């Protein structure tokens, strides 16, 4: 609904093209209306009820309960576990352990030196220095060991994701049928909120590191696969022909031409995989992933924001360093070819440098981070949070306190939206979904969206799903209003954009668990803090995409409008915004997907609905509740993605493919 509201005004002023689109839209709606006129009375006469009819649900409680029992009873005897899953699990444990032992043996000095040297050789002296400072900060915060645990976990998870992703990507890049089959699968995997698939992994592998790594791989492999396939497919036709005419075999063509040409995309894939793996490493602490995420999670239990922040900052630092270094590597490949021999020299420099520093640390008996070098930030942070909640919670003159706003937000916005959605007859919800998805996409996206929504009904969680949906819609609305406002400011002024960048970085990579307590302290328990957390998390992406879109508007068009005497306001409304429409739609889409991901975590602060059910399922080992709620979230995500998926993105993907 929000999507339609924001796109409608943008369509004005683009002339006859829009008129044509309008007509097509009217046609679609008419067709839908005819279908509805036939189907709705039928459905209504059979199952006349407001909510999803009971006759159309399937109860999975019993089979899922039986599955749980079967797995637990057979885990130590059935061949499937003994000869396959057990080995998978062992392999993960052994490889993480190996990496962890290497990191410990290198000591803090060795690891820091290695990080600095690698960053320097790949991305220049400035990033090298940044990396060193970042690692020293992790130690200074007293988080050295957890940081190494997270790093070991990340190395293995990213490696596995890259191998899986490249294999899938190679297949899809070389084979058309596989590409067509894989694309919707990868599309879907990227829409799913990570929290939803923790439960099945836990059931099979039990709590702990192997389950966490596998969940991370499932989450992080798709971008690698997608970008590898994209890179292989977009190889320059001329070059390929030239290589073929030189008589190269298929394999030679792949290794000498196609893969090198796709290097840039593959590196971009690596970058995204690393970022997703890192964010998942935190969420996976819920199922016992150890490391930094676990520290954040444990701090949450004792309501200690300061301690949570002390563990959250290293995660942010790791993310920033890894992002910049892989990003710089990608940029370097684009700009100039590395002369042969340089690569070898770099590797040698890194290895020798690291070894020297590590040995020096060992002889100085400074292998472990010295306790006396730890700075505790917990107390001042907690004092700050206390002050904030003491003074802002309620009774601020004129504007009221945050608790009052939250109560108003709940009663004036969340409640009416939820009541409205649950009041709508179920078939009309399906119709609205179909209409929105069809107007903005193709009949295929509309069909997917409707089927996803129907699946929610069949699973028997219609009501909680609509509750979650109401929270998502409210959060997206707030995110878009704030995001567009900030983005307009950032697009106007380079200085605003520059100051904004680190802030956005932090909010995007800070584990959501860190700000759960402050939002409760400010907004009280309920759906309002869940919405607030979601807004904080989704805002950076929306601001980024929108700013980029506004900046990317053709300067000639801007210049022309200025010379015609348009005021800045007119310029924005009549030139910039309409021209940046694809970016705005993408921002809406991303906003929806990200908000949904956090609304689940909102289950931890009283958000209720599906999020609570997933958390409940995880906490009680109740597969039936957790898995059904997880599946419903997946369907909701799918539906929302398709309803807001801009046609442009689809078309662009198509031409690139």
């Amino acid at each position, binding site marked *: 609904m929000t999507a339609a509201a924001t796109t409608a005004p943008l369509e004005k002023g683009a002339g006859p093209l829009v008129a044509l689109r309008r007509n097509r839209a009217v046609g679609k709606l008419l067709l839908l209306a005819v279908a509805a006129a036939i189907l709705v009375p039928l459905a209504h006469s059979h199952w006349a009820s407001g909510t999803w009819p009971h006759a159309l649900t399937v109860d999975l409680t019993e089979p899922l309960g039986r599955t749980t029992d079967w797995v637990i009873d057979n*885990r130590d005897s059935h061949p499937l576990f003994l000869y396959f899953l057990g080995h998978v699990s062992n392999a993960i444990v052994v490889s993480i352990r190996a990496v962890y032992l290497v990191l410990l043996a290198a000591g803090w000095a060795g690891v820091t030196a290695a990080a600095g040297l690698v960053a320097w050789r790949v991305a220049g002296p400035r990033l090298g220095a940044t990396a060193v400072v970042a690692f020293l900060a992790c130690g200074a915060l007293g988080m050295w060991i957890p940081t190494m645990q997270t790093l070991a976990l990340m190395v293995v998870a990213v490696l596995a994701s890259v191998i899986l992703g490249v294999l899938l990507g190679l297949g899809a890049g070389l084979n058309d049928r596989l590409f067509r089959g894989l694309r919707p699968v990868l599309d879907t995997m990227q829409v799913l909120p990570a929290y939803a698939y923790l439960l099945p992994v836990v059931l099979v592998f039990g709590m702990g590191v192997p389950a966490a790594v596998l969940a991370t791989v499932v989450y992080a492999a798709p971008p690698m696969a997608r970008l590898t396939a994209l890179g292989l497919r977009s190889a320059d036709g001329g070059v390929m022909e030239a290589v073929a005419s030189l008589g190269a075999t298929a394999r030679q063509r792949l290794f000498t031409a196609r893969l090198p040409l796709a290097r840039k995309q593959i590196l971009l894939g690596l970058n995204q995989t690393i970022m997703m793996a890192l964010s998942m490493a935190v969420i996976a602490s819920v*199922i*016992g992933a150890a490391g930094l995420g676990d520290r954040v999670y444990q701090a949450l*239990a004792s309501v*200690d924001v300061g*301690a949570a922040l002390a563990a959250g900052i290293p995660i942010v630092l790791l993310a920033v360093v890894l992002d910049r270094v892989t990003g710089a590597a990608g940029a370097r490949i684009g700009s100039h070819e590395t002369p042969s021999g340089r690569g070898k020299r770099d590797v040698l420099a890194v290895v020798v440098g690291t070894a020297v520093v590590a040995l020096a640390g060992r002889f100085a008996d400074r292998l472990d981070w010295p306790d006396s070098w730890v700075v505790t930030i917990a107390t001042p942070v907690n004092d700050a949070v206390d002050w904030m909640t003491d003074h802002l919670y309620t009774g601020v003159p004129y504007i009221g306190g945050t608790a009052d706003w939250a109560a108003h937000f709940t009663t004036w916005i969340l409640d009416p939206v939820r009541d409205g959605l649950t009041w709508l007859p179920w078939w009309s919800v399906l119709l609205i979904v179909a209409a929105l998805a069809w107007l903005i996409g193709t009949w295929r996206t509309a069909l997917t969206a409707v089927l996803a929504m129907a699946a929610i009904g069949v699973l028997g969680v219609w009501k909680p799903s609509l509750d979650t949906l109401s929270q998502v819609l409210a959060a997206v609305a707030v995110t878009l209003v704030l995001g567009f406002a900030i983005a307009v400011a950032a697009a106007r002024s380079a200085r605003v954009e520059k100051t904004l960048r680190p802030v956005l970085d932090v909010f995007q990579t800070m584990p959501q668990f860190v700000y759960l307590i402050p939002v409760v302290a400010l907004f009280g*328990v309920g759906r*309002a803090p869940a919405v607030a957390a979601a807004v904080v998390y989704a805002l950076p992406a929306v601001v980024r995409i929108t700013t980029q879109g506004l900046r990317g508007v053709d300067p000639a068009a801007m210049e022309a409008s200025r010379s015609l005497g348009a005021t800045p306001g007119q310029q924005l409304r009549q030139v910039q915004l309409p021209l940046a429409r694809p970016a705005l739609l993408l921002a809406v889409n991303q906003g929806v997907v990200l908000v949904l991901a956090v609304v689940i975590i909102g289950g931890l602060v009283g958000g209720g609905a599906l999020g609570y059910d997933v958390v409940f399922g995880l906490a009680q080992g109740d597969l039936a509740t957790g898995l059904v709620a997880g599946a419903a979230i997946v369907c909701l995500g799918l539906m929302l993605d398709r309803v807001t998926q801009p046609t442009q993105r689809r078309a662009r993907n198509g031409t690139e493919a």
Partner: protein
Amino acid sequence: MRTRKLLTAVAGAGLLTVVTGCGAADMTEQASPFANAQGARTVTLSVQSWVGAQANVAVAQYLLEHELGYRVDTVQVDEVPAWDALSQGRVDAIMEDWGHPEQEQRYVKDKKTIVNGGDLGVTGHIGWFVPTYFAKQHPDVTDYKNLDKYADRMKTAESGGKGQLLDGSPSYVTNDKALVDNLKLDYQVVFSGSEAAQITQIKQFAKQKKPFLTYWYQPQWLFKKVPMTEVKLPAYKEGCDADPKKVACAYPKTPLQKYLNADFAEGGGKAAALLKNFRWTTEDQNEVSLLIADRKLTPEQAAKKWVDAHRSTWEAWLPR
């Protein structure tokens, strides 16, 4: 051509190792990859999300590390999954269990992968509580029969026109939804989703001296900061909570138990002996909890403080 031969050889060798070499991989024998690093003997303890459980673990960890020379890993796991992790050997001990008959039957009696590690010495009790400042003004609120009179004052934006009964983490044992239905109370159960959220909310209410009704439990450090009075529910009788749908009685008093992984209990040496001997009082636990949760000491600092002051208590736990 050469690469292909090489590939075949490698694949063949790999297959051979899988078939003959490793054989069966036991899913029940899997420690954490971070355990026993650098030759240290490691014990892995599971920490549940409430602070009392953190206090047990903190003191056990401190003694294991400083008195017996172990290295201790802690993992935060919810109660039911912790049982599963314990049976698989991913954690060695649960220091505080509030009673999970189903899991006990499955793992202790049937599969024998977990053994009881004895009483913790602390008795747990769940109940409904109102703040003492409110109970003093309105003494009759402490009987469930009079709760409806005050429903209006316990309203929040989340409770939909009824009074709010604040409930905690999804991992906790609770019959509150059934209780509200069966006692026909004009209340709505609002799940705060985590203990952290619940404590934060209670503190905010207390700061404003607002009335509230909450699910809460003893022993708990928060009572020292926000004094609360229990609301009387129909008395608990053996078996009155057998059918989760028909429950209409109070919660029982539970002597909290420790559980150890069976292999660890047998071969865990001094560490296992210490954990079996670990037994302290509600006051002890609250002392440490308060240091962690309110004074914001790290669990290690809090444990050190307690250990320094109660030498005679813990010296009896040390294995001889």
